[in-house]
């Protein structure tokens, strides 16, 4: 009974954070800021949903699978964010116009000096 209530509470918290991640995906200005929203909040959101399953069914086959999925998400989502942002920067996707500093761009230009237009988007 208590576990059921706890499971529902965790599920609502998780879903709320997933909702916030989607809101952030729509509202934030460029690809890097959007990745902030989706990786961090998405991790806790998915974790909440999986934890809720675990609390509801206990350590049965489904519960153990949910726990495994949660741990895999925790390990893989930063790697996915790193690959997406790196690929985006290498491909020339600029930072949003509020950006104040880009030391990675400078380091890339120093490593392979090619004439390149301003990377900050208008």
């Amino acid at each position, binding site marked *: 009974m208590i576990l059921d209530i706890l499971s529902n509470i965790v599920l609502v918290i998780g879903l709320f954070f997933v909702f916030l991640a989607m809101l952030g995906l729509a*509202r934030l200005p460029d690809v890097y800021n959007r990745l902030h*929203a989706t990786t961090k909040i998405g991790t806790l959101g998915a974790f909440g949903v999986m934890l809720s399953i675990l609390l509801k069914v206990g350590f049965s086959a489904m519960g153990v*699978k949910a726990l495994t999925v949660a741990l895999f998400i925790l390990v893989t989502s930063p790697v996915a964010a790193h690959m997406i942002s790196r690929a985006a920067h290498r491909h020339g996707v600029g930072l949003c116009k509020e950006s104040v500093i880009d030391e990675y761009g400078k380091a890339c230009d120093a490593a392979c000096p090619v004439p390149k237009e301003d990377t900050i988007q208008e």
Partner: protein
Amino acid sequence: MKRYFAYSAILALVWCFVHGTVSINNFIVGLIIAPFVIRPFKTLYPFNLDFSFSNAVKKIPAQIKYLYVLVVEIIKANIMVAKIVLQPKIDIKPGIIAVPIDSKTDIGITAIANTITLTPGTLTIDVSEDRQVLYVHAIDATDPEGVAQSIKDDLEKYTMEAFE
């Protein structure tokens, strides 16, 4: 050969968890399949590293402490991003900054990079060729030295203890 068996046992345990029931049958099936997974990706597994069991056990308290710090930081990160997203007008000053790191080993750099991504306001983009600098995207990049200092003091201390 011994190394092969050790990695196979770990993968077999993972297979048990993915299947959902930890039983001797599943473990043996995992043990049979595991070498076919390890062989093509042999470079990813540290085969020529000397490994001591007592050393690994000694690191467990540091790793538990690191997990605790990680959970606290993840919750803080979520609340911070939630605040930014729910503001009526989004007012941020993002940027990419270079953060020097002390970690030397592959696993140490991976751990610090993933930890940075899961903690408030920062996202790892790349590691430099000489593996001494991480390029980190920060939501609030008005104070680059402050961000670098906080990463060094709050996070790298724990990952160095736990994984190096």
